[in-house]
């Protein structure tokens, strides 16, 4: 398979994730869509790493996975804190910061 096919799949997954972040209102699902976008970027990085025959892209992908894990941990912590304080688990309802 040529590298271009992998990049096309990666673009498709990224677009799905970006659309999902905009459409969804449950912060849990928004985090899932962020995961989709990060994974699409990972796929592109690894495809380019294969294209060049160098390991650098794979190291990038590994770091992206670390960042994604951190983002999930903090994001889920915020969701649990929202739930504990009996705030609505809905991003459109959390509008205190813009008055």
């Amino acid at each position: 398979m040529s590298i271009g096919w992998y990049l096309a799949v990666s673009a498709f997954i990224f677009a799905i994730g970006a659309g999902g972040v905009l459409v969804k209102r449950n912060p849990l699902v928004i985090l899932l869509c962020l995961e989709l976008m990060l994974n699409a970027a990972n796929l592109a990085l690894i495809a380019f790493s294969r294209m060049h025959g160098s390991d650098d892209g794979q190291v990038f992908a590994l770091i992206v996975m670390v960042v994604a894990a951190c983002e999930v941990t903090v994001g889920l912590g915020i969701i649990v804190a929202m739930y504990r304080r009996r705030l609505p688990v809905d991003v459109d309802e959390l509008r205190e910061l813009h008055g």
Partner: protein
Amino acid sequence: MAELLFFVAATGAIAGAIGVIALQNPFYSVLSLVGHLLSLAALFLLLRAEFIAAAQVVVYAGAVMVLYVFVVAYVGGAEPQIRPFAPGLRRLSVLFGAVILIELWIALLGTGLKAVDGEGAPFDPAFGTPAQLGEALLTKFLLPFELASLLLLVAAVGAVVLARRRRGTDLEHDDGDAVSVIDALRPAGTGTMKEGVSGLPDVGGEPPGSHPKGTTRPEIAAGAGDREHEGGW
């Protein structure tokens, strides 16, 4: 054979991604994402990234998704829609996603990279093995590697601080003042706001009667009672 595997895995990845946003129950969305991640790991294997594929399955589809499932079970899946979407807004969001897709495909089709149409670099048996990746991480990418470990530590501490039980939000745990080691080490009357508000505890240096407890600054003392029971973010 590789073509067949690619199409199966790519279809699985895209179907999983669509499932994440199409399913209404967040629990099923998480399961769909697990399927997506497994298909993606197969794609990584086809690109000869063995270590990344294994890490993807173990760390992502294993550990991170368990965290998701736990939180979904805790918060409790589908919430009723409180306020319906503005009708134009949803269409605009879908349009935005489509525009991103088209833009990325234009970039892909119009690329000047000739190697995109090829199969990639010539075969190298060491490519993507844990040994080579580990060597790169400990030599060329030592600083990002250490920063990543620091980031993980900060995120873990941050998550614990965010999600722990607090005084004030959980009434059954409201058992008066917390005692810290610092209280024993510092001299009495040096510093806490609580002492400034409600007067000193029994200290020799303070003349008895001049500042009776709780009466020094009544307007603040009255407010402090409420403030103590607020949990902060």
